């Protein structure tokens, strides 16, 4: 159905976010990043620059990473979104990409992290055996002011190996029974934070 709305009218936008149908009425100018954060109260997606440069707002649209600050909510009606909230298992066990960021010190303040994690999920779905140069290029669209990037690149490399071992699709929610980490040293990523390495989102 075609849609027409005045500048101050509201349009019903229905999407599936992390497998759950969600809807809200929003004006045409609502950015997808703000739709997620303000209308759907999913604040895991961060906003840095709002003009496409920093990558903090990266999410998956039908499985492909995009900038949520460079799309309008009304343009993605009917489609499937994945945000950082959709990655960890229901019991809080971290997704392999999140776990790798924790293991490899791929974050400090964490502001850029949701964007890096979502970019990495999209990248690793396409490139299952990346070399170091491919990882650099795959992550080149995201900025981090804290880490100096070495830990981030190491995290993506670790995640690539872990995902190959488990065969899991990095774009879907982590299923602990697929967990290939159980036997790995220091690789316990349960909700209690087995290695004491960091906070686990609730």
């Amino acid at each position, binding site marked *: *159905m075609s849609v027409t709305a005045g*500048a101050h009218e509201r349009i019903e936008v229905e999407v599936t976010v992390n497998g759950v149908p969600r809807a809200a009425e929003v004006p*045409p100018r609502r950015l997808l990043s703000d739709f997620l954060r303000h209308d759907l109260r999913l604040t895991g997606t961060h906003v840095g620059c*709002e003009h496409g440069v920093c990558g903090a707002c990266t999410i998956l649209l039908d499985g492909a990473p995009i900038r949520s600050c*460079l799309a309008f909510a009304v*343009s993605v009606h009917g489609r499937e979104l994945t945000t950082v909230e959709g990655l960890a298992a229901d019991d809080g066990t971290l997704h392999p990409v999140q776990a790798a960021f924790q293991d490899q010190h791929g974050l400090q303040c964490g502001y850029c992290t949701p964007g890096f994690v979502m970019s990495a999920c999209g990248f690793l779905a396409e490139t299952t055996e990346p070399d170091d140069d491919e990882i650099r290029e795959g992550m080149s669209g995201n900025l981090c002011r804290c880490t100096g990037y070495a830990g981030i690149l190491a995290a993506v490399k670790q995640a690539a190996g872990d995902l190959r071992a488990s065969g899991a699709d990095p774009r879907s929610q982590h299923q602990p029974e697929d967990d290939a980490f159980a036997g790995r040293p220091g690789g316990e990523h349960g909700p209690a934070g087995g290695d004491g390495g960091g906070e686990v989102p609730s």
Partner: protein
Amino acid sequence: MKPSPFAYHAPESVDETLTTLSELGEDGKVLAGGQSLIPLLNMRLAAPPALVDLARVPELDTVEVTAEHVRVPARVTHERLRTHAEATAAIPLLRQALDWVAHPVIRNRGTALGSIVHGDPAGELPALLGLLDGNVELVSTQGRREATADSFLLGPLESDVRPGELARAVVFSRPAPRTGSAFEELARRHGDYAMAGVAVTVTLDPARNVAAARAAFIGVGGTPIGVELTDALSGQAFDALEPGEAIGLARAAIDPTDDIHATASYRRHLAGVLLGRALESAARRAAEDAAAEEGTHT
């Protein structure tokens, strides 16, 4: 920042898009991938009264490859064209150029045609429009017209899309036999807009000497700058090119300026270095193309 308010139209067919654009006239602006337009809206450098979103017009999705052309309609993203096996086999320069366009995440939404319409002086695809004898197909309720690079790319961020018009597709010509191509550029980070870049095509004669060569430079003028290099290179063996004269011609033809990333004189120097590299790869690929072609005919 946030965009200022705009009325929103999401038509479902090209016909409906044209009717909507015609009703809106000067007020309407097409929204394709949004990867250039939305930053401008967010920064309030643009505030069009109405957007016409192509999000619901799937008839603009299909790349067509014929014996002469590759036709790329308005919704085809950079990434889809970059990974389109048939199109990139027909015109390898598409892949060579698209590898430099932005970051993967931007390429997933930005469209090839939108980048030509946007006309950034450092954009890669506008350079291909002239180099590959391309045409932009423009349609409105009044009819249809075609525009070449010279008539379409008017200046930095300025192209000849008139009120009520939709750029429906861009059509690139396939290269002549025994042609090779290359795209070279330097950006501060891979994926950022280039400080300077060059696309070249080199066509060899059956003896593997240069028969024709052309270049198009980006980032060193308000629009891509095409330079005809056939006279400077013709007759040279593909594996022993002496590009000095071609580089001299190019450095004289371009018109770089200073900005925070590089000085004009650095850009002029860089453009010449990149041209030398690109000619060498293109000539080598042309020889490979010639060998492959002879292989299929014997």
